[in-house]
């Protein structure tokens, strides 16, 4: 008989469902007054150091239809590559944001500061990126991905370098559409499917 392994197993995920906003962005669901404001309303406060950027996009399903009920969350470092809580991090950068696809157009917008490069555990430099997590009806376990920027040096990023099919790398790179403006569409399935992470 082997010894029993006493480690636990992670609680299984379930979809956030169509009404995920009630719990996470109550004002989106039409519920005002329970909390003073929605959690994660903005990842930055006025005075955050660095370049302010706006990233716009859609979450698109396998038929080409943009989700109207997606919930997105982002997490990032400040302009110097420090995560909130790390020594020397910009106190005006909370780093966390929650936003929803618009219920009519399916378009989302994230206004934030462009993050600086961050080191991996082994000390390699990761190109500037924003981590993104997506929950929605039909998504049984939340999807992690990353937003990189086309006007940064992404050449030696450890995560991008691991993508064997180089034609999939652009699915993680936001396209510049104007000064401080980027486009980042997330394709859940099919042609141009975004790379999702198990990390």
């Amino acid at each position: 008989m082997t010894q029993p392994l006493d480690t636990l197993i992670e609680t299984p995920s379930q979809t956030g469902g169509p009404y995920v906003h009630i719990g996470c962005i109550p004002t989106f669901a039409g519920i005002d007054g329970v909390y003073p404001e929605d959690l994660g309303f903005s990842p930055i406060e006025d005075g955050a150091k660095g370049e302010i950027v706006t990233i716009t996009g859609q979450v698109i399903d396998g038929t080409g239809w943009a989700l109207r009920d997606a919930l997105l969350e982002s997490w990032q470092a400040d302009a110097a590559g420090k995560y909130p809580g790390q020594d020397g991090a910009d106190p005006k950068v909370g780093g966390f944001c929650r936003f929803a696809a618009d219920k009519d157009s399916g378009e989302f917008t994230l206004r934030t500061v462009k993050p600086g490069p961050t080191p991996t555990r082994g000390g390699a430099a990761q190109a500037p990126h924003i981590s993104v997590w997506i929950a929605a009806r039909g998504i049984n376990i939340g999807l992690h991905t990353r937003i990189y920027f086309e006007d940064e040096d992404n050449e030696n990023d450890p995560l991008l370098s691991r993508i064997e099919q180089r034609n999939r790398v652009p699915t993680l790179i936001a396209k510049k559409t104007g000064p401080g403006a980027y486009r980042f569409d997330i394709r859940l399935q099919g042609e141009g499917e975004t790379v999702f992470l198990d990390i």
Partner: protein
Amino acid sequence: MTDLGPLVPRQRDMHPVPYDPDYKTSVPRSPKWPLLSMESTPSEETGPRFGHSMLGPLDNNLILNFSGDPGKPAVGERILMHGRVMDEYGRPVPNTLIEIWQANAGGRYRHIKDTYFAPLDPNFGGCGRTITDDQGRYQFLTIRPGAYPWPNRANDWRPMHIHISVFGHSFGQRLITQMYFEGDPLIDRCPIAATIKKRSQLDRLVAPLDMTMARPLDFLAYKFDIVLRGRRQTMFENKLEGM
């Protein structure tokens, strides 16, 4: 900051399958290609922290937090939902944010897109939040939600359930799940519950009645423990003195 080690990789076979034709919306919303796997980085090993100071006094009391008036409680079966948040090594996860949302006693959500004809309860909003204590414990006072029909197969009904969102201490631990109730016959008929293929894993989402925490003449109680990903200590690699 102390290096707590990389996140333990997810055991994906213990989670629901992303693509399940019986849950129709998963068909166009599930990635076709494999996930890109690699060891976690600080991007996943750090995450937002929320302080107890952000909480209002009624944030974990869904019976009162919408009306704000003790004279106008929500209608339904009064229950205490409580439990602990732990990691895979059984260590408590203190000071972590838990958010819940649910339908009212009739199975109707207070959401602009819910058109089910069961009425709204004027005194029930359906959202709550709390932060675990130093032992990882949490509790909510709420009403038991009703089952409701949904447009999947021709006659599908969701079991009674409460949605739960947990942060943990790092972005890579992020988890949304659902709590079901002991004895509900709809659990075995639900295509969303059935996206979890290991029965023992689905059973972990079914909260038992907990009479030890029920308050006589006031409310029943259900216990729901949550396990998040752990952090794997890296032996010998960068800590020669050991663990």
